[in-house]
């Protein structure tokens, strides 16, 4: 026995067989579990989109609520035109953000609730330790004057993160941070894009463009600011041109 297991040929054969068995098993399991995993990701995305519309859903109800409230979805280019043949649900924002600003595909989801129309925009950026992302919903309003956008006022937001510091940066996923975004405007009175400012040291309570940053989460707050600026400005033409 000792002779045999010390032998070079035996060692090579043994490792080859072990690797073959393990690789086959893993391949089989990975393929079998893939549909369930993809489904989890899809449901989570739908729940996040619904959350930005202030609709609370759980795993079981997400699909049904999504079909009820999200009436349309499309992919836009930066000039505000719809691009055919690209499924907005399949657009990977992380990849899009690597392209030059003018060439990005921009997903948009149209929501309908209580006779109002909403637009849900996905956002993606960098926090302190890893990616942060979310959805921002806007309520459609007819512009008060020429040059003002149809989508200006934020109806709801939903932010999440991969690995921000618990208790600090990770608080971006909490209600106390997200609720103040409601009712804030991303365009000023002249129709210029100003975004929403995440202000350190306390937002001006009268301002419609400012919310409080998170104490101790400065870098995450800055990342979130940059995420909103980059992702929302791309839709400027669409916000202004839609009728």
């Amino acid at each position: 026995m000792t002779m045999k297991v010390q032998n070079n040929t035996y060692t090579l054969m043994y490792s080859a067989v072990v690797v073959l068995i393990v690789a086959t098993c893993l391949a089989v399991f990975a393929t079998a579990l893939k549909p369930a995993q993809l489904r989890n990701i899809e449901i989570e995305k739908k729940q996040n989109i619904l959350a930005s519309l202030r609709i609370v859903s759980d795993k079981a109800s997400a699909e049904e609520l999504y079909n009820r409230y999200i009436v349309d979805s499309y992919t836009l280019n930066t000039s505000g035109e719809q691009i055919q043949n690209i499924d907005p649900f399949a657009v990977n924002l992380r990849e899009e953000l690597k392209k030059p600003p003018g060439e990005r595909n921009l997903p948009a989801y149209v929501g309908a609730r209580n006779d109002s129309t909403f637009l849900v925009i996905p956002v993606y950026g960098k926090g302190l330790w890893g990616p942060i992302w979310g959805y921002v919903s806007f309520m459609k309003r007819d512009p008060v004057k020429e040059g003002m956008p149809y989508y200006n006022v934020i109806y709801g937001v939903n932010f999440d993160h991969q690995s921000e510091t618990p208790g600090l940066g990770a608080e971006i996923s909490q209600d106390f941070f997200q609720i103040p975004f409601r009712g804030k405007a991303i365009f000023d009175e002249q129709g210029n894009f100003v975004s929403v400012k995440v202000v350190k040291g306390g937002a001006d309570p009268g301002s419609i463009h400012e919310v409080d940053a998170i104490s101790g989460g400065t870098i995450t707050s800055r990342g979130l600011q940059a995420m909103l600026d980059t992702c929302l400005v791309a839709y400027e033409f669409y916000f202004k041109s839609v009728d």
Partner: protein
Amino acid sequence: MKHLKLLTNPLNDENPITVQVLGICSVLAVTVQMKPAIVMAVSVIVVTALSNLIISLLRATIPPRIRIIIQLVVIAFLVILVDQILKAFLYDVSKKLSVFVGLIITNCILMGRLEAFAMNNRPWESFLDGIGNGAGYGIILIALSTIRELFGSGSLLGYQVIPEGLYKLGYVDNGMMILPPMALITVGIMIWVQRGYNKKLIEK
């Protein structure tokens, strides 16, 4: 049961965390809340038990020169499997555990048990030893996460247990409990308490 010691020793006298101080990394990382800690504990028990069992079954056939590699292949196989299953069926928890399930592969407890026990013992004993050591890791994880969640977030398993009235009186959650340094300090206190009543652990 003659093998009872294999199960109970790692819980106290030979605890992988408080006595052997192995696997500390994940202990600090996944104990902010109880639910991920429990899932992590169960995952580690499954991996230690099965890897011990598989290695013990193969122990006579494994070429000694590549035995560490074979052990790692078996551990990595089981860990990837656990990770995939969590992603498919416990998605929320798998997101919270993120990389730490994958890092079970590098958990010293596993390699330690395979080298020290499974390579020289029969499958049944090895299996029990694996469960025992996984459980020894698990009880510390659960105890630590109970303390951290209770004092850090005022809840247990996600349910609020510290009454609202206490917060109105000026009670605040201890934010330090959520951060890793406090986990390390709490483990230190646990080791101190354990040695306080178990005198034979104290080094001469």
